[in-house]
């Protein structure tokens, strides 16, 4: 006996409109935060677990970015170093430098005489006193050649071949070997971080899911009552999605703190390492975009865990 076309249980009217919906979200968000902060010690454990799970792939991502950057930087200025024999006159070094300058694709040629090499060595290593004890200068003259940007390994081989076999040359070192190594390491780190990101991402989801599951079980009676008085499945799920978001975002913050701490710890030896190669430590990637991406990833993973955990439970709840 329907009353015309009138719906006796209207959906839209009962939702309270967008304002009611927003108000409900705000209330649930407050309650979720209250619930999490009330159980601070257990929440901290969840944050730490999620944080550790996120820190490793995020840290590897940073490493990969920096290796790529280093590789790209070297890619723009490939070069070679020519080491002369110890007894070679300085004029020979200048002649060889001139020949190298005339090669196509060569950008810069810098000659370092044995005396200059010794001075640099003393400055950078602080081993001046030890060198003073040697009968003579053990360092040879060298020529540093940089090719123009975009030069290929074949160009590098060509330039090296132009002086190879000269009796005054002790060794020609091509930087492409290092470049290839850096690229290989970068590739390994890239693949490793992808695998770890997946594994640890799943780990973060599972940690959140199990924590949310505990929260669901702790509030079963309340959820049953809510369902009885007309709460929708979305309303039942809502607080747990906020739990997941809070756990995930908190875990992401912990991950960022772990990465920052790690960078602080390794900063001093890294600076030393870079300066020994004559360059400055310039860490890239740890920028606002990275911070936002880690926070967003953590939050999304947390919500995913909550969806898995609370979603199915919402359908099962009834007072019996």
């Amino acid at each position, binding site marked *: 006996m329907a009353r015309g076309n009138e719906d006796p*249980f*209207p959906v839209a009217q009962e939702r309270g409109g967008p304002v*009611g919906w927003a108000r409900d979200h705000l209330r649930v968000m407050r309650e979720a935060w209250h619930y999490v902060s009330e159980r601070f010690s257990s929440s901290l454990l969840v944050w730490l677990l999620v944080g550790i799970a996120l820190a490793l792939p995020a840290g590897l991502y940073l490493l990969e970015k920096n290796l790529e950057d280093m590789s790209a930087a070297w890619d723009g200025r490939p070069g070679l170093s020519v080491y002369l024999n110890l007894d070679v006159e300085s004029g020979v070094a200048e002649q060889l430098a001139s020949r190298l300058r005339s090669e196509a694709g060569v950008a810069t040629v810098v000659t370092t005489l044995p005396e200059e090499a010794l001075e640099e060595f003393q400055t950078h290593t602080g081993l001046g006193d030890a060198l003073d004890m040697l009968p003579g200068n053990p360092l040879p003259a060298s020529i540093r050649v940089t090719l123009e940007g975009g030069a290929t390994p074949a160009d590098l081989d060509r330039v090296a071949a132009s002086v190879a076999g000269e009796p005054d040359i002790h060794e020609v070192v091509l930087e492409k070997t290092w470049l290839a190594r850096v690229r290989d390491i970068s590739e390994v780190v890239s693949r490793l971080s992808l695998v770890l990101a997946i594994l640890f991402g799943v780990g973060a989801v599972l940690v959140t899911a199990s924590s949310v599951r505990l929260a669901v079980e702790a509030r079963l009676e309340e959820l049953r*009552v809510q369902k*009885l008085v007309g709460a929708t499945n979305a309303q039942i799920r809502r607080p747990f999605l906020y739990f997941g978001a809070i756990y995930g975002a908190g875990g992401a913050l912990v991950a960022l703190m772990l990465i920052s701490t790690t960078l602080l710890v390794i900063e001093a030896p890294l600076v030393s390492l870079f300066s020994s190669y004559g360059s400055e430590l310039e860490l890239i990637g740890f920028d606002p975009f990275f911070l936002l991406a880690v926070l967003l990833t953590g939050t999304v993973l947390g919500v995913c865990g909550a969806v898995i955990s609370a979603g199915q439970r919402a359908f099962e709840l009834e007072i019996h």
Partner: protein
Amino acid sequence: MGYIEFHGVTKRYVNGYEALRDVSVEFAAGSMTFLTGHSGAGKSTFLRLLLRMEEATRGQILVNGVNITQLKSSRLPYYRRHVGAVFQDHHLLAGRSVFDNVATPLRVIGMPEKDIGRRVRAALTRVGLLEKERLLPLHLSTGEQQRVGIARAVVNRPNILLADEPTGNLDPDLSRNIMSLFEQFNQIGTTVIVASHDRELIQGTGKRIIELAAGRVVTDSGDGKVAEVSLPPSTMPHPGVQEVAGGQR
């Protein structure tokens, strides 16, 4: 709103037990009815089917013309917002104050907090518990807890109010008090169905009484017919139980 029809409703559990058997009965909007019968007669199942806490095996249950047995699960919550329910064991939230317990249905529909405060206090005033709104249910007597349950059931001004053994744990005075509350809600147009095995309490109320036994309607004072059926003392279904023709519409 509040017109209820049961048409040939049967509820059979997976173990084969039939809690309700081919029950057909109607409730006018704004009426008050007592369901009575021994324990296991099918009273609770009747109410649970009406709340869609369980699915009917066969038959139709119409509320204002809508067959709620066919109601999609996505629409079920909106139906339940029109039905208040009171249980013998209250189902109050132990960790929440009396106020918060009563406010639950209003928060579900997204009512503003200031309106919630007004409505909750009105409901608590009605059941005489306004001064205890800050207490936890644990600090209340059984009768008071039951009244909190009633306040929660009516705070949303439902069209239908269902109560399953609401006086089960109460002394006679408190029971009469609770029943008079239901009568008050009925007087303002709410369709009230109360399941109670306490015949003394419901007799003399002048309200319609439906007696169930072994899942069947055996008497229905609403249509003036009383069954002359001999029932076994057992609460289990019995093949000898006759269906009362007058109970069917």
